[in-house]
């Protein structure tokens, strides 16, 4: 192969690699402001009377009560052998009381079986509503977009993602900061400021 061809090939490969890496880095911020992408999934685990959330087939989150008044924090977690998520359970249990009823907290997880999940929930004292993603599609989709579990995804009442945060490992200071940040983001949206003007941090960036 001539040196000219080799150089051309090297440049071409460089462009391809650069493009792929850039795409990956862009993927997380690209989620901000978009609807929470989700497919139909099975949420047969009805431990906490999960009658207020439906995931429509049009890839947007809809709220059956139709009041449009609530934002959501979806907590995506795996409940296997990692303690990082479990250390935050007490914090998740406290979250519903921190936003004057304007933000609903919902956990979403997948796993081997509903029985195993039910066993885990009973033992771990998780008191927020939990959806069971039996097909593993929702969590897989987030994982492939670079979001590792446990992840907290703030969705405003229009269904747009406003922030993605990782685990706090049970640390009070970062949990307090998270609550303040959510209030600030939602408050800014309510007062009519443009979403792009809101400082949104992505705690779990790759």
């Amino acid at each position, binding site marked *: 192969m001539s040196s000219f061809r080799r150089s051309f090939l090297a440049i071409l490969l460089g462009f391809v690699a650069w493009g792929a890496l850039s795409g990956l880095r862009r993927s997380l911020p690209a989620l901000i402001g978009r609807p929470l992408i989700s497919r139909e999934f099975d949420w047969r685990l009805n431990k906490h009377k999960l009658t207020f959330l439906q995931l429509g087939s049009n890839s947007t989150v809809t709220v059956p009560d139709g009041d449009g008044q609530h934002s959501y924090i979806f907590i995506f977690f795996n*409940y296997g052998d990692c303690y990082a998520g479990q250390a935050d359970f007490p914090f998740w249990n406290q979250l519903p009381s921190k936003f004057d009823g304007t933000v609903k907290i919902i956990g979403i997880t997948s796993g*081997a079986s509903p029985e195993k999940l039910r*066993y885990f929930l009973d033992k771990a*004292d998780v008191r927020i509503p939990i959806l069971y993603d039996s097909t593993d599609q929702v969590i897989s989709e987030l994982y492939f977009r670079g979001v590792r579990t446990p992840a907290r995804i703030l969705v405003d009442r229009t269904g747009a993602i406003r922030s993605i945060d990782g685990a706090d490992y049970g640390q009070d200071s970062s949990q307090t900061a998270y609550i303040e940040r959510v209030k600030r983001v939602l408050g800014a949206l309510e007062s009519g400021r443009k979403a792009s003007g809101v400082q949104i941090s992505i705690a779990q960036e*790759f």
Partner: protein
Amino acid sequence: MQQANLLFRQATRAVLFSALAAGVAGAQASKNVPVLSDYFAILDTLHFLGTATVPLFSVADPVLTKTNAYFADYLGHRVLAFDRHGKLIHSYGARGSGTTNLQLPYGMLQTRGGELIVNDRGNQRLQVLDTALSFKRTIAATGQNEQIHVLSGAPSRLVVQGVTACQQPMGCVITTLSESGGALQVFGAIPNDIVQFTWRSAVNPSNELLVVNMIGSHATIYADGGRILRTFDLKSPSMIHFRSEPGPDSNSSFLLQRLKTERFTKIQRISYDAGHILVQLEIVNPRHDEPRFLLDIYDENGCLRVSGIRSDGLVTRNGAIEYLISRNPNAFGSIVTRQIHLLVERLPPTCAKTADDSK
């Protein structure tokens, strides 16, 4: 009508012939695939069946003694003791951080003195119990630890290998502890290696510590004290790698490769038996259309002796136990343990071809 009959007969013949050919091919293929009994003596098989109150779908590696089997139930935050007939005889612990509480107990072992040591991962400590699961003492062990080992010789010492991939900063850290508590040595910190997966470790009778990254392609052997003795490649034909370059951008590299790679191999366990290293692989394959567990055998110099041995479950430490976790026949888990022992004389006398040799 006659034509239809003829067609039917021809079709039937074709189907029968195809089935016969497939059967012969399948039998030939399965004949060539090494299985555990080709290289191991299978000494003992025990069965344990989970129930609604004591499910067995979230237990870490078992400890088998002459009379009992012990399981750490990490989602149940307790330790269970069964007799050899599968009857529950003791249960210890409940979720919490108190003296006799457990949080995510992830594995246990038995010391030469007979005490049971539980990796109380969520509480960042070890708990020492007697064989009736009565509390004896705790040993502080910082971090979300992955595996514990007992070193031979006096005074008694433990090796704790952590931290798990879900904790920041990720990487492997090895701590040697006295059995009464207190860190003696810390070594093996690898902050810039592949960070996305947990590490696995094993200790041989000479107190050499073998450490691998679950998705890595090489093994490191440390002397007692932390000096690196040697490294060798783990490149058997059974392994399906994707590359994730070390360095500050290793997470991006990992994710990029993960996006492209549907099938890959995790090193689920490593263990020593009869002077050889057993590398237990799990094939991650969303289609589940191939064997899930394969075992490779290396000698202690890193020479691959046999690759691709099919096993029903994980081959793990404590005298090379194979155990299988299955949700069948009920929804609450069942476990079959098999004590196995490597028959060295059955191994081929020369090194097997590695993945690089095959290219």
